[in-house]
């Protein structure tokens, strides 16, 4: 369902940059997303190392995607099952994605450390929200290191929690993204 537009976008970014300035294209070499739900009764933390993505430092455009069912490290296998089947419905909505453009007018073709904001569409659980997300970029030797912390409100993405687990699941999920993008 969402695979197509993302692939389309990927190819668009790849294609357009490929013509103009290939050296400005980066893809995720290693990337992880950790989410944590800090509810009164339970802390749930899980990580996926399957982050995929692409970044054009010339146009300052990017697209990241992730298979939702690759999150690991739940407190119990049952929890993982609930996460995938009941909340994120990863069968129905297998991917989460964030694609957009960097707001700041900075030259990202040079090495350096940048505090930037990315504006884009965040799709989780099949619901797309336009979001601004703060990131820290370190560009060095054609490696772009990305670090970002942000939150996702379950309600923003139509993820409903049964009343009985309210105390066990936070309504605001914290996410931490770390990725190294390498020159393609």
């Amino acid at each position, binding site marked *: 369902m969402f695979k197509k537009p993302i692939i389309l976008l990927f190819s668009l970014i790849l294609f357009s940059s490929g013509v103009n300035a290939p050296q400005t294209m980066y893809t995720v070499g290693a990337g992880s997303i950790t989410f944590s739900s800090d509810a009164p009764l339970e802390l749930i933390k899980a990580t996926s190392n399957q982050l995929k993505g692409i970044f054009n430092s010339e146009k300052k455009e990017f697209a990241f995607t992730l298979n939702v069912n690759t999150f690991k490290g739940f407190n119990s296998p049952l929890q993982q099952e609930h996460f995938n089947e009941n909340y994120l419905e990863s069968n129905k909505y297998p991917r989460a994605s964030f694609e*957009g*453009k960097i*707001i*700041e*007018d900075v030259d990202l073709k040079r090495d350096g450390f940048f*505090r930037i*904001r990315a*504006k884009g569409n965040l799709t989780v659980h099949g619901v797309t*929200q*336009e*979001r*601004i*997300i*703060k990131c820290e970029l370190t560009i060095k030797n054609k490696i772009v290191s990305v670090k970002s912390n*942000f*939150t996702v*409100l379950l309600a*923003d993405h139509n993820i409903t929690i049964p009343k009985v687990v309210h105390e066990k699941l936070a309504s605001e999920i914290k996410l931490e993204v770390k990725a190294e993008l390498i020159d393609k």
Partner: protein
Amino acid sequence: MIACCAIMQYSYAQDLGSRSFKLIDDNKPFKINTLFKNTEGYIYAGSTNGLYSFDGIRFKKIHFAGANARDTVTAIFEDNTRHLWVGFKSGRLAKKINGRLEYLDIEEGNPAKAITSFVQDKQNNIWFATNGEGLYYFKNGRLNLVNTENGLSDLHVRSLQLGNNGDILVATDQGINICSFIDERVQVQVIGPKNGLPDYYVTAIIAAGNENYWIGMQEKGFCLYNHQSGKITIPPDNANWNYGQINNLLFSQKSLWIATEESGLLKQSVIDGPVTEFKIGNSTQKKIYNLIQDNEGNIWMNTATELISITGNKLKIWPVYSPGIFESIHATLCDHQNNIWISSNAGLIKYSFTNDRFTEKKYSFNDLNEKTDITSLYQDANHNIWIGTMGKGIIILNPETGQSRQLSENPLLQNASILSITGRGNTVCAGGLEGVAMIFIISEKNKSITEKYSFTNYNDIENVGNNYIYNIYNDSKGRIWFGTDGKGITVLENGKLTNYNKHNGLKDDHIYSFAEDGDGNIWFNTEGAGIYQFDGKKFRNFSVGQGISDLKITALKTGPLGNIILVNKKGIDVLHITTGSISYYNNNQGISDVNTDMGSVTQDTAGNIVLSTVNGIVVYTPVDQASYQPKTIIENVQLFLTEVDKLRTGNFSYDQNSFLFNFTGLYYTSPDEVHYQYKLEGLDTGWIQTRDRSVTFLRLQPGTYKFHVRSSLNENFDNADEATYEFVIEKPVWERWWFIMLGIILLAGLIFWYTKKREGRLQKVQELRQEKIQFQFQLLRAQVNPHFLFNSFNTLVSFIEEDPKLAVDYVGQLSVFFRNIVNYRDHELITLGEEIGILKTYFYLQQKRYGHNLELNIAVSEADKKNIFIPPLTLQLLIENAIKHNAVSKETPLTINLFIENNKQLIIKNNINPKITRESGAGMGLQNIVNRYNLLSNEPITVQNDGVDFTVILPVLNQ
């Protein structure tokens, strides 16, 4: 007949009362970037040194909470919960919380470009614009960005405006952008040159009512945009706009005010009318940034270095008088074409105004000589001008033709002195000396001044007075009012005359002039007692106590907004008849030396007040819907010098009891004139007057309080604006009813419990003691028996061998003795007699052993034997001891004496014959007695051993 000449002059109408303020802090000037007025009417200035509030006198810095942050303020805004937002050049945002600025911590990060404008939409979302990143809005706690990806035509946003329909109108470098939510997403529609906008570069958008918006542009002037139809209307004057960039727009005082980058302040008074430059005092500043209006209708703007206020259209001055003219003026008239006529040296001067210039035309009259004073001017329904003179009666002038004649209809007028000429519709009323009290009826025919006038003279009527009539006034109901010199007022109504004077409560019977308000009340001013309002029944006086600034009132007029306007030498008092409060325009606005002749105040066709001052003709135009009295604001409430949120309605604990209130009566027109009254309900009984702007209350007792403060421009606080702050200082816990109740219950419980416990304890102590006694008795008794038996058997053994008969007798006595012991065993006490019985038995047993070497003398009365009690076997034990411890032999007989001394002491005394070998168990028997007595008596047992006698003194027990 008339000589006249016209001179063309150029002159700008000048503003009156402009003031300017430099933002100087710590001796350093700072640049003002933005101005803002909050809901209360407080002016804020955003500067390169942060945020300042401005109370009309000084700037006060609003500091950051905590860290010593510094930031350049570029935008200020108040949301509909009255919280102040500040946007900075750095792109950061802050809110004012408890009097301090606090940066917002935005999860999405801060913009990196300067914040330029704020707006709150109809869903209460806050929007703000940046210069380079587009615009942002907060929705459901999230910050969202609208930029070119959403269709915004340019990222540089100058200004935001909320549309009537909820859309956000955005001024960008590339046209107007209209933002609206469609399916929860922001859609942008661009209005640019293609849509008829003269310029793509939009700098300002302000609401003009009815879905219309004024649009200010970079180089093509301004236009009107209708958001409903999309129609853009360009004023005709814009075609050759050469004033440069518009920075800001303000619609105020029925005019559009235009702040420009290079042409100063401009004004358009009539839609599609000409745009004129508005000269601000002596200012040469050409770069005006912002425009706002205060609550009193004054217009505020800022240049790079100054904050400037102008009265705008409210007060203006035409400096038309040539030298010497002002001093010669005794009467003025504004005619039906708004030309202003003044009397001068037996002639008239007419000033005609067109835009920025005026012409001056002089009229002189052959009938008048140099010494004739002109006292009054009036224009009748036919537009002819009536000229009242001292000594020459009335002259009629046709201003069109210049033709004039002296009125001779009444011979009285020939050399009459006229004090006033007034009129209404087809009447003209003239009052004066020598009995002139005439009312003329004007007809169409009188257009020609040669036609005769019909008239009535009221000079012979009683109470109207036949000498001095200062003023005759024909009111809207057809009544004719006569103001006399010393006889009060007389009214002619339905052919009937009624006089009101001192007997009707008037404090002064010298009546100068009349006016009528919208409710038909008649107002008149007196020589020295202020003015009166007469509603047909009662007179209401307004004097210094009500706030009239000067009792020497030149003229009384009804202003165009229905207020009563008083003119005096210092300026204008404006009496607001609905509230009775009075405001002033005087030297604070640059008015000085007002002409004090009765006929020198006139009104233009719009009813605005025209008066003559030494600096020229002053026109006062009241501003609609403007506040005319100070707005009272409690600026902050401090608890022990820490600011508390003034929106907070909460209780304070008993030790939070020292309050400081800072307040302001905001009145930008004359901030120095504000007086205050305050009271603390719950503490003070009455109002306390002050000119301070703060008051402290220390150590308030617990209770409910309401702090009231009100401000006024004079001593009259009857209708003053009032601000209040209610608070409760709670009683300390121990003074609250529930605590006291709880305390009482607890105390009662405690007492009950204690009593119970004590009873129980006492009982227990008793029981314990009893038990102990029992126990010890048992123990003691147990000790007695073997001891005695041991000795007895020893004696018996010796008898059995020596004297068996005696032995039988001895065993018999021994058995009596033991029976006694058994009998008395369970008794705690027995009588002394009983004890002596036991003792005698025992003594018999012992004497059998020792013979006459042992002697016992008992000296106790029969009464004592019955009345004195003693623990059983006590004496027996003591005697047993005496025998045991002493050698009893022929050489050393033992004598034991038993007697009572002082009825208190039972004494057992024996001589001492120490044994060579000490008997085992020594001291045990005596110790037993001592223990037993300790439990039974408070008196101790005394044991004395003086080497000769051994004495035991027992306290006597009387049961």
